């Protein structure tokens, strides 16, 4: 895995681009903008389901969510640029491992939400409280994305081999 990612980074020129004086911080800035887009749309949607800004009609606010998906995709792309430029710093990093696990939980939570909670949300009248299963999914979503930010910020503190964790 590490050598595959390494060769992708080296052969594509991504490694060289990322290690110019402005490459890494520029991609980081895009990554931060993507996360702001995600929190600003999906985070505000979750907050609405949890009871903040209850006057906003839920179905109308849901139109912001595709912008959050756009932010997510931007971050998958920019995140890929980081990982292929220094694979060993990420693959064996406990902060990255927890971050990816939280992303997987958030992904499963999306499936659960649209399978079990979206229909009653669409049927709810303006100003209504979201149904309990929607509130639960919103709480999981918000907790996961905040956890993703926390772990993302901590990556630099858990760089191998100077790290500790019980499974490393």
């Amino acid at each position, binding site marked *: 895995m590490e050598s595959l990612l390494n060769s992708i980074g080296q052969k594509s020129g991504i490694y060289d681009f990322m290690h110019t004086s402005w490459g890494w911080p520029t991609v980081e*800035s895009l990554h931060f903008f993507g996360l702001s887009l995600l*929190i*600003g749309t999906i985070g505000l949607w979750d907050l609405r389901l949890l009871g903040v800004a209850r006057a*906003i009609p839920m179905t109308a606010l849901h139109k912001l969510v595709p*912008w959050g998906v756009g932010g997510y995709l931007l971050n998958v792309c920019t995140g890929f640029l980081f990982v292929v430029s220094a694979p060993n710093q990420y693959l064996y990093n406990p902060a990255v491992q927890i971050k990816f696990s939280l992303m997987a939980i958030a992904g499963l939570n999306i499936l659960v939400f649209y399978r079990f909670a979206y229909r009653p949300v669409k049927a709810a009248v303006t100003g209504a409280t979201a149904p309990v299963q929607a509130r639960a999914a919103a709480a999981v979503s918000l907790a996961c994305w*905040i956890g993703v930010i926390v772990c*993302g910020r901590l990556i630099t503190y858990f760089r191998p081999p100077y790290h500790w964790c019980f499974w490393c």
Partner: protein
Amino acid sequence: MVEALIWLEETRFSTWMRESGPAFFSSLVFHSIGMAFVTGIHVATDLRILGVAPGVPRSLMRRYTPVLWASLVVVTVSGLLLLLAYPAKALTNPVFYFKLVAIAAALRIMRALMRGLLGDSRHDAAPAPRKARILAGVSLALWAAVITSGRFLAYTAEVMLASHLLY
């Protein structure tokens, strides 16, 4: 100036911010979370003004201001703590002042929008006027600039501590 910075960075609190470990990285973590909500709420409001999610009554975007205020407190406190950890690192870097000016301008724009277009629900039915759309676009650009300059601060600093300037 250098003496003042040296005095500041040698205070017990500043030294603790640098050397304890958790104090510094938990400030970074809170700064990131606060940034996500401050920028996120601004971006969502700007997108709404620019015509996204037209079913959301524009004035109701103000219902998120309590969350915005709480996030502004978090970014400001964590930002001040990070500044106290390495005062000379930021204060000797022009990028830091650019970031502060961009934040001030972006907050000023949002205040004007909140009091004007978003302040009266009677405006909700009509599309946003051209001037408000331009302000929303400028606001988006300013937040992108704030994020970028914040990130570049770590890469453009010429000194970490003022005491290094003596040698």
